[in-house]
């Protein structure tokens, strides 16, 4: 079971994601965004950061990278696809998750622990958690506020407070079949008690348990 962690120029959470996945016994490998074949992988994570310096809009350029054609293929084949922060923004730009992201309500970058509540366990991110479970996971974003006029996005994690004005207080949203999930807080940053929380583990474990041989 192998997870591809796609590296775009400007992302910066790729090593943290690999570390967190490996700590849970998973097998994650960095893949350059120009890669055209992810056939050897069973799932993919798009890590956070600032792909292409957020030029035009967050994720707007990254969606055109060759690796994204493979991400689309895997998504439609039902493989687990997780976009964290900037990765979620790429998934929205690609149309794999409905909606888009705008600047936080208070127009300032937010890096701090936030509490989220599991509201739907039918997704590759939340399947190992239980409904109503509260998790402390760090936010780290400026364009963190999700908007979805279509109403088609299914919210799986909801902020307990309302840190950024996200529609429906959405902290994580999935597609219809639940195999593609975008999450704004960083589960990989909540995998070690020494750093303040291990609540992200249940999310990443759910993702890893969703992997089936391609």
């Amino acid at each position: 079971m192998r997870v591809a962690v796609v590296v775009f120029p400007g992302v910066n959470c790729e090593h943290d994601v690999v570390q967190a996945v490996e700590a849970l016994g998973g097998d994650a490998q960095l893949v350059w965004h120009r890669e055209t074949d992810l056939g050897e992988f069973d799932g993919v994570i798009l890590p956070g950061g600032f792909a292409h310096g957020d030029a035009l809009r967050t994720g707007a350029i990254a969606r055109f990278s060759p690796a994204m054609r493979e991400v689309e293929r895997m998504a439609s084949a039902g493989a687990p696809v997780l976009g964290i922060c900037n990765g979620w923004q790429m998934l929205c730009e690609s149309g794999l998750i409905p909606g888009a992201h705008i600047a936080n309500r208070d127009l300032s970058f937010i890096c701090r622990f936030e509490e989220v509540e599991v509201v739907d366990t039918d997704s590759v991110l939340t399947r190992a958690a239980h409904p109503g479970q509260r998790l402390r996971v760090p936010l780290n974003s400026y364009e963190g506020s999700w908007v979805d006029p279509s109403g088609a996005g299914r919210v799986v994690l909801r902020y307990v407070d309302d840190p950024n004005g996200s529609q429906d207080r959405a902290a994580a949203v999935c597609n219809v079949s639940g195999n593609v999930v975008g999450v704004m807080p960083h589960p990989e940053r909540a995998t070690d008690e020494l750093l303040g929380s291990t609540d992200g583990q249940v999310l990443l474990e759910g993702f890893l348990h969703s992997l089936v041989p391609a």
Partner: protein
Amino acid sequence: MTTTQPVHRQLGMTDEEYQSVVDILEREPRPAELAMYSVMWSEHCSYKSSRKHLGRFPTDGPWVVVGPGENAGVVDIGDGWLAALRIESHNHPSFVEPYQGAATGVGGILRDVFTMGARPIALWDQIRFGPLNEPKNRYLFKGVVSGIAGYGNAVGVPTVGGEMEFDACYTGNPLVNVMCLGLLRRDQLVLGTAGTPGTVAVLLGKATGRDGIGGASVLASASFDDTSGEKRPSVQVGDPFEEKKLIEACLELYERGLVVGVQDLGAAGLSCATSEPAGRAGVGIDVDLDAVHTREAGMTAPELLMSESQERMMAFVEPGDVEAVLAVAAKWEIDSAVIGEVKAGNTLSVRHSGELVAEIPAASLADDAPLYDRPMARPGWLDDVRARSDEVPIDDVAETLLALLADPAIGSSAWVHTQYDHMLFLNTVVGPGSDGTLLRVKGTDKALAVSTDGNGRLCYLDPHNGSARLVFEAALNVAVTGARPMAVVDNLNFGNPEKPEVMWQFRESVEGMSEACEALGIPVVGGNVSFYNETDGVDIHPTPVVGLLGLADPMPIDPPRLRNARPGMEIWEVGPKATGNLAGSALQRLFDELGGVPTAPDAEMAKRVVDMAVHLAHQAPVLHDVSDGGVAVTLAEICIASGVGATVEAEHPFSEDPHRFLMVVSPGTIELDTSLARRIGETGGDRVVINGVGVDVAKCADAWGNAIVRALAG
């Protein structure tokens, strides 16, 4: 600037300095040559006023791998790992254009560190402004914080700590100092050398434009007046995305052993990045300016040589590796150009449009820079301010405590540090808002601790002892995380060095810092000097800033944290007893006073207390250094973080006498040397009670937590 001035004066050079150039070359300099000398001999690049004094710093230690003089200091932390550290100022650019000034300050210090072969893992910001009740100061403060956040977050290096101070002396001249720490494997160290004849110079990164021309000379090395806004074109514009790609590309070059040496392009741009590595290696170099990739057409040779366009790096490469280097650049989507070749001899020769535009001894730009022994004089006003009383009338301990907690320099820094990514890389064990930052070193059981400290008010009253106390305070700040002090970098922010009083302050400060470092047995491995911090003839307080690195070996399994206090614990004050001295204290600032003679440091005591703190950090749930606002504020901060009250008896609760910390511990768990420690009370309830006068923890939390937000509301 007026056009009637000779060119060298327009470039910030004195007539005597110009004559030295003529003497070296034995002829009049060509325009491009004059441009190069003007930037390289600027105060900012040449340290011409400070060099004489900087030699005083102790710089040796068995763990020092690279001392001052390179792009960053490097120390050995064991297990095959080295740590690279440096601090830099971007004071004047940040006043002229706060967002870009601060942003490019971050970019510059990062390059200093990854030039050494290190991956930058953390940043600290030391920022000082005038009082926030003035709209201009609020604008500068917000702009600087946004600039640090905008660049640091996007470049992917966490900002994990720092310090703020607000004082009228910084109104016309804010201070923006940024420190960076990097990690590298021992075999990956790279130096700023041009190598041997035949080595090829490859310019990597962003295209060269007309931005930042004369930044080092016109902006950083001159004083301010009301026309300073006209200097805005001398401020560079940062692009963190380009820098991020440059970092990754350079780290790949280092990993694959593809470079002989590397030099970043910061102040003085290409002039510095060609002459310094050649000078260090004792070689010459041919540079072809036509090969430089530019952002705009028609740039002249002096412009190309002086431009401070950001996100550029010079790599010195064996001829056989050039193709591989260019391929790595292409992979990371950065531009690259072969612009020169190292030659035997010592001549830096530069061609542009087929013409020879410069031919000078490479090392002369650095080595023959003027060295000034500027006159020094103890300020005449010093006796008057020191003769003033340091007493402050305290009517009500509770009200005084609340007022101190509401001071934006003391209150919660969350408004600032939640705008910074401070968690990236999963190393931040103890983060911003604590005494020292503690970063674990993955793959080892060690951790690195850093504290950055400055105190302009203390150094105004006593530059010698004030500077020494900064070193001791930073040492105690890392010690309470479990780390032993290891090395120091310094950023010396002073006024106009042409004033004897300022030079005296500078010399005293260097002396004080040196003595403190010697007492602790730690070297200074790098630093930066920022002079001309004056506006309309008024100098800032002397404001040296210390960045101190400590090593926790091993890292405490459960390091002390402010939030770990629980009801029923004992509160101990460790260190010498308070004398009641309030000179230069936060309490004086509250009453708009500044006077008296601050308590002198005690080196032996400092060492003992640091040793105790390192030892106790492996056992105690809470250790907290006593500094701004004394025991009262220190205790309140613990109570706020832990959500628990406390009752103490403390003589002189607002005194900031040095070498003290508070410990909170379960009864009977730790034996303390009572000659150096006193039990002053216990935790419990929901009030902070000092000498019988109490205030709700919730009220303290409100004052402290909203200090900056309220100050920014005007």
